């Protein structure tokens, strides 16, 4: 399964293997993990994915330069140009709460003053602003939820796998129970229970996504640990009397964690999607918070006139699709690389 890479003379394996050079990176990550990494960096689809992700990272970092906040204390508040309820088309005049004109604006659009580049949504919220600053919201929620679910999943799954027996049995039945409800329903319930307690913000939805999001990781890491656990070096560590926690976290986990880590890093797209779905349904942030799902939810009252107001769904929708597609492209390549049938082929 694992490609062994002998470094010295090895006449048995033939010259090819014996003389294969092992770079510093490969030594650092180990041959199997190195194969995963190079596999990801060589597929055209996953490169396209990385480009998309990089583009969104750039937007989120450069948000204040692209469109400066109108209320610097609360940059995530989408500026409202008045209170008229019906959306206004792209390029219409921006009269109230106008942001400063950034350096690129005149060169790109040829205008001196801000207009609503992508139109306004219901209630005169600027769509362009919502999309640009919503990128930050997306990364913020995506990163926090992914890191938290990953940590919880790893700790839970490794404890379960390491101790095995009835501990494992009980812990995995708890996972089964948490997986019974469809995740969107469970998350929706918890978020709407928490909202009155915490108030409308990112937190209830994020807590709910974390609470019902870690089970997958714990199952995967459990499987990987169960196979690593049987290796000789673990037995050796146990024989010389190393503590359980040290064996688990210093010997087993580092050797089992990598596939889960890569999977987790690609789950950001899914998390952002679930979060957007929640705020589309009306759970989550207060009205007017720069967040893609919310910008889309402004369209819900205008279904009958989407003909005229197509821009209120097309632009935020496209943004969300491209964002998720970036992660999916990389994820798709990863699935191929991790496929056991592909192992051993470099």
């Amino acid at each position, binding site marked *: 399964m694992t490609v062994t890479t002998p470094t010295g003379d090895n006449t048995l394996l033939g010259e090819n293997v014996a003389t294969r050079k092992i770079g510093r990176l490969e030594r650092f990550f180990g041959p199997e993990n190195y194969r995963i990494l190079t596999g990801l960096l060589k597929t055209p689809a996953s490169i396209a994915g990385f480009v998309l992700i990089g583009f969104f990272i750039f937007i989120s970092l450069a948000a204040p330069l692209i469109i400066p906040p109108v209320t610097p204390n609360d940059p995530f508040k989408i500026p409202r140009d008045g209170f008229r309820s019906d959306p206004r088309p792209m390029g219409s005049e921006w009269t109230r709460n106008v942001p400063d004109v950034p350096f690129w604006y005149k060169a790109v659009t040829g205008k001196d003053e801000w207009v609503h580049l992508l139109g306004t949504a219901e209630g005169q919220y600027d769509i362009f602003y919502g999309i640009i600053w919503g990128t930050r919201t997306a990364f913020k929620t995506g990163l926090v939820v992914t890191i938290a679910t990953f940590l919880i999943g790893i700790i839970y799954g490794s404890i379960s796998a390491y101790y095995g027996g009835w501990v494992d049995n009980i812990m995995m039945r708890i996972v089964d129970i948490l997986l*019974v409800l469809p995740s969107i329903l469970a998350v929706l319930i918890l978020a709407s229970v928490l909202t009155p307690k915490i108030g409308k913000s990112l937190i209830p939805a994020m807590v709910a996504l974390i609470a019902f999001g870690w089970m997958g990781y714990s199952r995967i890491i459990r499987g990987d640990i169960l196979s690593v656990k049987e290796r000789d070096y673990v037995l050796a560590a146990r024989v010389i009397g190393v503590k359980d926690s040290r064996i688990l976290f210093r010997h087993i986990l580092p050797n089992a964690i990598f596939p889960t880590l890569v999977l987790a890093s690609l789950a950001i797209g899914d998390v952002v999607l679930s979060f957007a779905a929640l705020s589309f349904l009306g759970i989550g942030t207060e009205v007017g918070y720069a967040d893609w799902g919310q910008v889309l939810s402004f369209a819900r009252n205008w*279904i009958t006139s989407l003909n005229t107001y197509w821009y209120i769904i097309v632009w935020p*929708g496209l943004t969300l699709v*491209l964002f998720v597609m970036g992660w999916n492209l990389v994820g798709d390549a990863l699935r191929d690389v991790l496929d056991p049938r592909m192992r051993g082929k470099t």
Partner: protein
Amino acid sequence: MTTYIIRRLLLVPVLLFGVTLLIFGMLQFLSPVERTALYVRDFPKNDKAIEGLIKRYGFDQPVYVQYWTWLVGKVDKASGEREGGILFGNFGYSRSASQPVAELIARRFPNTLDLTIWTIAPMILIGIWMGVQAAVHHNGFIDQAARVFSIIGTSFPTFVFGLLMLLIFYANLQWFSPGRLSDAYTQVVDSSAFTHYTSLLTFDALLNGRFDIFLDALRHMFLPILTLSYISWATFLRVTRGSMLETLRMEYVTTARAMGLPERDVIFKHAQPNAMLPVLTLAGFSIVGLLGGVLITETVFNYPGIGSAAARAATSLDVVAMLGFALFNGLILIVSNLVVDVLYAFVDPRVRLS
């Protein structure tokens, strides 16, 4: 086989207990006053009434006593009537829909079931067909196209795709509209001349001989069906393709080819049946998922199933109703997952014999 089924059956009570515990746990986030919706219609008005209700339904009792009361309800000594008790189908009162949750579910679930029934065929058959085509033309143009399709499919959030469908087919072309029925037909269906045999609208329409109503109902379901199928096609495609590729590499397929069977027979008679096993599991779980009410799709298309009812309850913070939906959903899922697993054991000899 028997041990497998018994072990699988033993899991059911564990899951049931766990899910009720989970839902009961979330209920604890509510204040006792809010929890009175489990038993009575109106919010208690004054402190005295609140205290009375808290005493009456034991919200001041230890948690395990409360859990028991929640499960079996409380029998009124004088009249002998049972109040509450989720085991007896009393899921509480939905203040956002102004009716008991159980009634709401009973009224909404047939619509969800109707939608599910009509989604099954397009979702599974087209998904499998695409997967088989991709596998047969491995690495060819069709395979690459399928790959692009599946990436786009998985990247399209349900609500974005749904809104896009509404933009194209409703706002622009005016072919299909959201909702359940046209207004004129709604009156017919609500009138006494229309008999509700099954409470599934499409079937009732056929049984009543109203082909026009049947068509109108289907027309309203077209976009939800398309959306639900579209988001599942990518998964079906991927699973079918993978499984088919693996099967085509097996030696018995080579044997069949070597014996000179036509390629058509090799693929459709020899390879495909065996490649369908993982797809079968996926199909089972997809149908079960649909039955649970597809929250977002139903909401986008304003389709009156249990999913949109749950979403409505969530936005109005009607937690008692939502937990009722969750409970109902949990029951459906536990039972039907069991059915899927057992059926799978019947189909796959590897599970049956191990």
